[in-house]
């Protein structure tokens, strides 16, 4: 506490998030003046060194931005570069891409649900501590996660930075017989994934409302994963609010990044307003596209029924949405394997041309956008990457501020440790991937 009644609280480094960040709270006369999510990942300059590379290279190169969601980077890059070259990947090749992406969803979402997020609901520091009292629940989560990794390993060669994705499709496509053991594994994982939905639905959820606009890709006939049209659900008190979509090529005019001195990640705004991507946004915008059986689980899990226009805005309940998304991804994977017929060629040619292309997919933690400008010989002349956590920073800070203010408004004075726990929980609700969000920036502290 300083003499003028100002108290500064610095929490960091944050645990159980990917990458390195900290939180800075400023309290004046017992009230919260400021909450800053500071990201201090060192800069890695991807957008700079992509210039001058060949147009076939960004899928492998940008996957190294994030070891947690490399498939998201590979496929956002492929979509953007194929868009630039005027090529559309369809049919079984597109289905295999969705299967690969389902593997990453299962792996990454199961990781967050069971190992990173669940410990918060039991007051544990880690899943290893949680396993002392809930070993079967943690072990079940690991089994589900392993099934997701098995998909990525079979289709991609390895779970982290898979090697089989290329422009136009894959280097090699599997024979149907190779997918059969995977289907067996997934059928067992389905029971585990459903059990996990029931498990997390029974958690004790604090009250909270995230008031940011919700932003996700949407498809006309299914839950958007590896493609879709950018769609915004405006916040409007308790009501559903208006929904509007815009073409992906206009992404840069709607989502505008700006720099703040205390964070190495750029903040961004959507049409001048704070927005949130990720599970809450996806389920609010596309939840009604899920099969009825899963929606019944969602209703039982307290999410409301998206078929009636209900919107869950409680970030703590995002763990239920993630668990349902895992189950959905398992079902989708089984469906794709069942319908699989090997395509005649593992990839279609993607000849270079001078153009700009846009690509976006739903990374587990939210919408990931890539834009590339190519010269006629395929040389990349400009690259823009907008990861989900950079977009979510403003909404996460607002969530933290709301949680801290709500706590300060009631009860006895809050100790630092209590505020720290409260704030870290508010941050982890959004599964931030800080490595991604700060792929090229570094903060210097403002004094």
């Amino acid at each position, binding site marked *: 506490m300083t003499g003028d009644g100002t108290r500064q609280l610095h929490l960091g480094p944050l645990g159980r998030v990917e990458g390195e960040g900290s939180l800075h709270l400023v309290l004046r006369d017992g009230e919260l003046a400021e909450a800053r999510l500071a990201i201090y990942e060192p800069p*890695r*300059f991807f957008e700079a060194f992509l210039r001058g590379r060949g147009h076939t290279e960004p899928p*492998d190169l940008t996957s190294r931005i*994030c*070891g*947690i969601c490399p498939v998201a980077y590979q496929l956002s890059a492929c979509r953007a570069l194929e868009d630039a070259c005027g090529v559309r990947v369809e049919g079984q090749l597109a289905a295999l891409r969705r299967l690969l992406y389902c593997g990453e969803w299962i792996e990454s979402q199961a990781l967050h649900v069971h*190992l990173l997020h669940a410990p918060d609901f039991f007051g544990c520091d880690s899943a290893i501590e949680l396993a002392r009292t809930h070993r079967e629940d943690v072990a079940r989560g690991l089994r589900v996660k392993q099934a997701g990794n098995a998909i990525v390993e079979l289709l991609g060669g390895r779970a*982290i930075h898979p090697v089989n994705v290329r422009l136009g499709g894959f280097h090699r496509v599997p024979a149907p017989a190779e997918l059969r053991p995977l289907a067996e594994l997934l059928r067992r994982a389905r029971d585990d994934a459903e059990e996990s939905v029931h498990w997390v639905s029974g958690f004790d959820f604090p009250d909270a409302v995230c008031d940011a606009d919700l932003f996700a890709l949407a498809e006309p006939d299914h839950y958007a994963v590896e493609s879709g049209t950018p769609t915004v659900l405006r916040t409007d008190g308790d009501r559903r609010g208006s929904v509007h979509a815009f073409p992906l090529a206009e992404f840069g005019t709607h989502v505008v990044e700006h720099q703040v001195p205390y964070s190495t990640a750029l903040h961004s705004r959507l049409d001048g307003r704070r927005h949130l991507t990720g599970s809450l946004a996806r389920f609010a915008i596309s939840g009604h596209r899920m099969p009825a059986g899963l929606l019944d689980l969602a209703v039982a899990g307290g999410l409301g029924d998206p078929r009636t226009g209900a919107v869950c805005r409680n970030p703590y309940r995002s763990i239920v949405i993630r668990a349902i998304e895992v189950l959905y991804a398992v079902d989708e994977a089984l469906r794709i394997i069942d319908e699989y017929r090997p395509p005649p060629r593992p990839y279609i040619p993607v000849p270079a041309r001078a153009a700009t292309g846009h690509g976006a997919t739903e990374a587990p933690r939210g919408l990931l956008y890539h834009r590339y400008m190519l010269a006629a010989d395929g040389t990349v002349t400009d690259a823009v990457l907008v990861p989900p956590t950079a977009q979510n920073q403003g909404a996460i800070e607002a969530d933290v501020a709301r949680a801290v203010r709500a706590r300060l408004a009631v009860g006895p004075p809050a100790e630092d440790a209590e505020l720290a726990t409260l704030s870290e929980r508010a941050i982890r609700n959004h599964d931030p991937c800080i490595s991604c969000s700060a792929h090229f920036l570094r*903060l*210097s502290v403002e004094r």
Partner: protein
Amino acid sequence: MDRPRLAVWKFASCDGCQLTLLDCEDELLDLAERLEIAHFLEAATAPAAGPYDLSLVEGSITTAQDAERIRRVRAASRYLVTIGACATAGGIQALRNNADVAEYRAVVYARPEYVETLVTSTPISAHVPVDFELRGCPIDRGQLIEVITAYLADRTPDVPRHSVCFECKRRGTVCVTVAHGTPCLGPVTHAGCGALCPAYARGCYGCFGPSDSTNLPAFVPLLRRGGLAGPDVVRVLRTFNTAAPEFDTAARQAAEEADR
């Protein structure tokens, strides 16, 4: 007896190599009973103070603060093992070592004065003594388990240093260069991945860095004969292990020849 204490540290990186530890789904809970995971921010809050018996270090050194921090990690660690291409060779972010960082910063950043970084990305071994370097972008899960168990048993890890070619032969993969003329870095790349790329019908792209006995001056002309143009040869050597001395030297020579 006290359990051995494990710490996991992150510098400039993608988090993928430390995620490999969480990807050991079959071993993770048993491992956690046999050793104390004292510091692993990706998986746990409440890190415990040192000293540590084994520190796994991911990421490269790109800031002055990190150059200081790695010294503190070394001082607190009995054994220090680097995991992955960033920690072992500087990673893909070492592409800046051949570029103008001020220009990089200005191109992508409206207010470059907020941005603080060193002009190079360097491996951990450029700053402190390292007991073992585990290769790969990312590392291999089986090799990680081998390294952890070896150090906890005070023995040398059994991690072969020969080239990817040996792994192709063992796997029974037909040589993609011989059979299809596909350019492949397998002959000069460190084993450990199990020769994945050739098994998926593409050439090795060198993500485990140079093997222990490379002959790049003899190898690079073979890449050209396979159809790679000068700038392509430079690009293929300048990826995740661009700052590994063998690859860096060969890339410089290839760049000079391409300019002629």
